[in-house]
């Protein structure tokens, strides 16, 4: 007996993802109005979580989807932050415009850096990116007008005059410094949502399909006309731009910069790698889970200083050895639930009822 035949179609949506999309929309709305009902310290925690999430998503895009393991993300965080400082201090631009400048500067760095690092294969690419970060750090430390090796501070008047602070001040009835925190938080939320959306869209596009094919079999992908090098360069550039933007944003809020802090491999790459590895590399949900666990661990163990990092390193090693797909990967493979699915499913036809 032949039933009604539904035409074949390729889909990525699942029931869980449709439900999640609605919950996610509610979470975002709750996030937007959070400054009304949350304290300043909680907002600062959320700012930290959101900015780390953006860093984790961009590193995951590189390592988890394009196979480009970068240990030099601090180059883009640091350069983005320094470009923002240059915009505010030297060019007298609005901090918000300067954040964009930070993203553009990081993307501009990615062109020569990529040209250089892409000459190194696989594992050597990792150390190559690290060398790039060291070079940028050493060069920036020579920039005397921005404090050289000891660093400098952002003039308080400039951040308090940032676009939107007076409106937020009047709207929420708060002091200027608090208004700056609220705006930074909103920008972090916007950037986190935009990053997840960008990564999701990219992976569902034909470029994402091409990326997956390169990851699974580079020769076969090339044989059907996928230009792996161009794809990887595009991913590298996107990741650099996002990382530069968030680096600049982090330093608007910190308001104090030095080369050693802005180009710290621990803060901007090691933490990020652990977040992605613990949460689940190669998934969009993984970094979200990872950043929440990372934040909880930090709240619990941060007083222990180097022991905390030691524990984090051990957890990362154990997960990589025994559950390389991370906590989210374990959960997804047991339950089959995917909240942000990018895998294409063939639906319809005579088999589908």
């Amino acid at each position, binding site marked *: 007996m032949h039933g009604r035949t539904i035409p074949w179609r390729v889909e990525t949506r699942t029931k869980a993802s449709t439900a999640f999309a609605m919950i996610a929309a509610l979470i975002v709305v709750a996030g937007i109005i959070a400054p009304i009902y949350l304290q300043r310290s909680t907002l600062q925690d959320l700012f930290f979580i959101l900015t780390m999430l953006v860093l984790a998503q961009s590193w995951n895009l590189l390592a988890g989807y394009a196979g480009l393991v970068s240990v030099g993300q601090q180059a883009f965080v640091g350069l983005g932050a320094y470009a923002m400082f240059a915009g505010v201090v030297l060019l007298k631009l609005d901090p918000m415009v300067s954040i964009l400048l930070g993203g553009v500067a990081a993307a501009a760095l990615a062109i020569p850096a990529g040209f250089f690092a892409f000459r190194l294969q696989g594992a050597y690419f990792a150390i190559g990116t690290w060398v790039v970060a060291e070079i940028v750090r*050493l060069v920036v430390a020579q920039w005397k007008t921005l404090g050289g090796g000891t660093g400098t501070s952002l003039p308080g008047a400039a951040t308090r005059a940032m676009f939107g602070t007076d409106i937020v001040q009047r709207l929420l009835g708060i002091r200027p410094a608090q208004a700056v925190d609220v705006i930074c938080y909103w920008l972090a939320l916007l950037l986190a949502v935009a990053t997840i959306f960008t990564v999701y869209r990219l992976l569902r596009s034909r470029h994402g399909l091409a990326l997956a094919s390169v990851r699974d079999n580079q020769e076969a992908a090339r044989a059907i006309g996928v230009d792996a090098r161009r794809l990887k360069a595009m991913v590298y550039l996107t990741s650099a731009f996002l990382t530069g933007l968030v680096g600049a944003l982090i330093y608007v809020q910190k308001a104090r910069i030095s080369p050693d802090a802005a180009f710290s491999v621990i803060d901007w790459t090691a933490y990020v790698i652990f977040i992605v590895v613990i949460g689940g590399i190669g998934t969009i949900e993984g970094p979200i889970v990872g950043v929440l666990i990372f934040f909880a661990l930090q709240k619990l163990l941060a007083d222990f200083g*180097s022991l905390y990092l*030691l524990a984090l390193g051990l957890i990362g*090693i154990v997960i990589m050895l025994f559950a*390389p797909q991370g906590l989210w990967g374990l959960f997804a493979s047991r339950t089959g639930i995917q909240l942000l699915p990018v895998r294409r499913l063939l639906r319809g036809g005579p088999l589908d009822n």
Partner: protein
Amino acid sequence: MSWADTILQGVLLGGLYALFAAGLSLVFGIMRLVNLAHGDLIVLAAYLILVLVSGLGLHPFLAVLIAMPLMFGVGWLLQSYVLNRTLGPDILPPLLVTFGLSVVLQNGLLQAYSADSRRIPAGSLETASVAIGPFNVGVMPMLTFASAVAVILILNRVLYGTELGRAFRATSDDATTAGLMGIRPNRTFAVATGIAMAIVAIAAVFLGTRANFDPTIGPARLIYAFEAVIMGGLGSLWGTLAGGVVLGVAQTVGGAINPEWQILAGHIAFVLVLLARPRGFFPRAVD
């Protein structure tokens, strides 16, 4: 200080970088594994030697003879129980596990020995120098360079003249076929990493007697080692020495012009070499 003298100091410094790099080069050559904790393992060995020197009152060169088998054991265990599990077509697991190990080692050492900088005392050897022609050359830098040459001579002899070396090369070419011929790849890998760590102990004694060290300097040593390997060309140990010399000379010349440019000059030399000769001076390996 004349330019010729500066360059000579740079050449001798290159010996130290070649010692940093020889173990990295060996391990990569045999199992295509890049150990991101290599620099931190050098620092670990330096602390081990420091403990032997200050605890037992041994001379550093005697202490290194004890440290070498101990570090061989560390490498053997590390490879057998951790790194062998990560080997495969995917490059992510070894990179991320060794990166985690780097963070663990740094913070373990910080916890045990604090962030204070230390130095391995070497008595009168520290300042001893001999006059060679118009130059005054330090005894320690000369010993460093001579050790690097000796290590490379012995390694090449082992690789191309012994049964162990044949097993190394066979496993490197095709681990599965080597396995069919009665070689156990995992055990071969463990021995290779053990040897690399014994070389790391030699590098550590010269690192620790030459200058101050603290638990956080490992990553920079990894980068120098890596630059020497890449500039020299993958698979060539003499190339690694040449790469180390180029790096050392670039650093001392840069430092002579402006002390702040010392490290930067080394990195820039590396980038220039890589742009001009993407596969290094003496490339041998195909990948």
